[in-house]
């Protein structure tokens, strides 16, 4: 049974659930921007984004604390059931994943500063492509969340293999490049970290996809994408 759109008899209860969903949507929006800016900064080798990224991360952290408080309150005071129960428990998990994504995006942005100290290298194109896929995953899973739609969630879940593959290829190619030209080791190490962080973000998007699937269908997302 999908999420109910019918209004609660106790208006304040319905509002509390709405606020929880709003918090998640805001977290998602912030984290998405965070990631876009971080990847763009890496590509441009631009150290100037640091303060902006830092400020945004503080907002994300504050929202996560807010989500935890709301969930605690809902359990203590409303004892949510059925779709409300699944929504509340999923919100807690999703907020944790989003906070981690924000953190990883921040790490990526900080690497942009490190890369600024080196001459431009063609290797950044590789992370740019990986980054584009991961951003798309994050965007899709956030859409799935806001529309309580399992289909995009399942798609994201399946596309994680592609991210892993691309990441592994990237690592192989970089090792080769660095072996051939030791001058690339400096920037290469930073780019490897960026790639690793992107791959981790892909994992979090997968977790969120699973949470959305459970929230909507009450069953875990398993191998064939159906319950």
């Amino acid at each position, binding site marked *: 049974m999908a999420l*109910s759109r*019918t209004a609660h008899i106790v208006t304040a209860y319905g509002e509390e659930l709405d606020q929880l969903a709003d918090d998640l949507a805001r977290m998602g929006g912030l984290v998405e921007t965070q990631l876009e800016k971080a990847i763009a900064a890496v590509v441009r080798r631009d150290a100037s984004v640091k303060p902006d990224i830092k400020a945004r991360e503080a907002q994300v952290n504050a929202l996560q604390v807010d989500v935890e408080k709301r969930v605690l309150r809902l359990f203590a005071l409303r004892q949510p059931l*059925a779709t409300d129960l699944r929504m509340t428990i999923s919100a807690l998990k999703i907020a944790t994943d989003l906070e981690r994504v924000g953190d990883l995006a921040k790490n990526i942005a900080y690497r942009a500063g490190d890369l600024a100290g080196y001459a431009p290298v063609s290797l950044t194109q590789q992370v740019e492509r990986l980054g584009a896929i991961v951003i798309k995953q994050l965007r899709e899973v956030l859409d799935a969340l806001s529309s309580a739609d399992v289909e995009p969630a399942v798609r994201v879940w399946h596309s994680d293999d592609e991210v892993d593959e691309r990441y592994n290829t990237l690592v192989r190619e970089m090792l080769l490049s660095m072996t051939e030209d030791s001058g690339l080791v400096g920037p290469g190490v930073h780019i490897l970290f960026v790639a690793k962080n992107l791959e981790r973000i892909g994992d979090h998007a997968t977790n969120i996809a699973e949470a959305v699937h459970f929230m909507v269908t009450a069953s875990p997302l398993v191998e064939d994408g159906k319950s």
Partner: protein
Amino acid sequence: MTDAIHNPADELPIKVAARDVTVSYSGKQALHNVSIDIPDRSVTAFIGPSGCGKSTFLRCLNRMNDTIEGAKVGGSLTIDGQEINDKSIDPVVLRASVGMVFQKPNPFPKSIYDNVAYGPRIHGLALSRPELDEIVENALHKAGLWAEVSDRLAHPGTSLSGGQQQRLVIARAIAVNPEVILMDEPCSALDPIATARIEELIDELRENYCIIIVTHSMQQAARVSQQTAFFHMGNLVEYGPTEDIFTNPRDTRTQDYITGRFG
């Protein structure tokens, strides 16, 4: 609604089986073709909005509707495969094996001892006073009341607290060796501690009895029952393992009711 009758506890034998049970009061239908299999040695909760027919269905199980003027009961109801509406069944005997506990504790205006001894006496379950003493003590033990009343068995039942009175009523039901215990909102007049005691008692009793409880508290249904049946406007809408009903109800009406939405 085809799965409504299915016994959700596969490993437990079916105790009560209803098929197309209908009830009308003076021609006004209160229950529509209820079919359900209720397992033994577990707790089944009936939930649903006021007036949906929960009490009406409970009353079918011990033929209490017989005593209501204008009430007409149709369909088949068996306990251990025996049709209880059969002419050969004596309702008084039936009511001993299908005990009932009501919302408001209703001890007889008698001593604690006599409240419990009343049933065994009229059903001739004890041949001697020591035997009756043993039955009374046993029933009070099972109802978790013995320690609190053993030194004042001669006191009136009405001198006990609400929660104790409810446990006394349960002891009274247990004393006549019931097979099924029906409870109609047994805790709605009790405070949380007394409620917790009754819930703990229900959990202990389910080892030996088929218990059916009507409750308005979702949390209580969730806490004490293994199966939950949702009634709506005289229909059995959904029936399944309690965990499933409260995490993933199939029917929108169930969903709206348990989450507190406009139905």
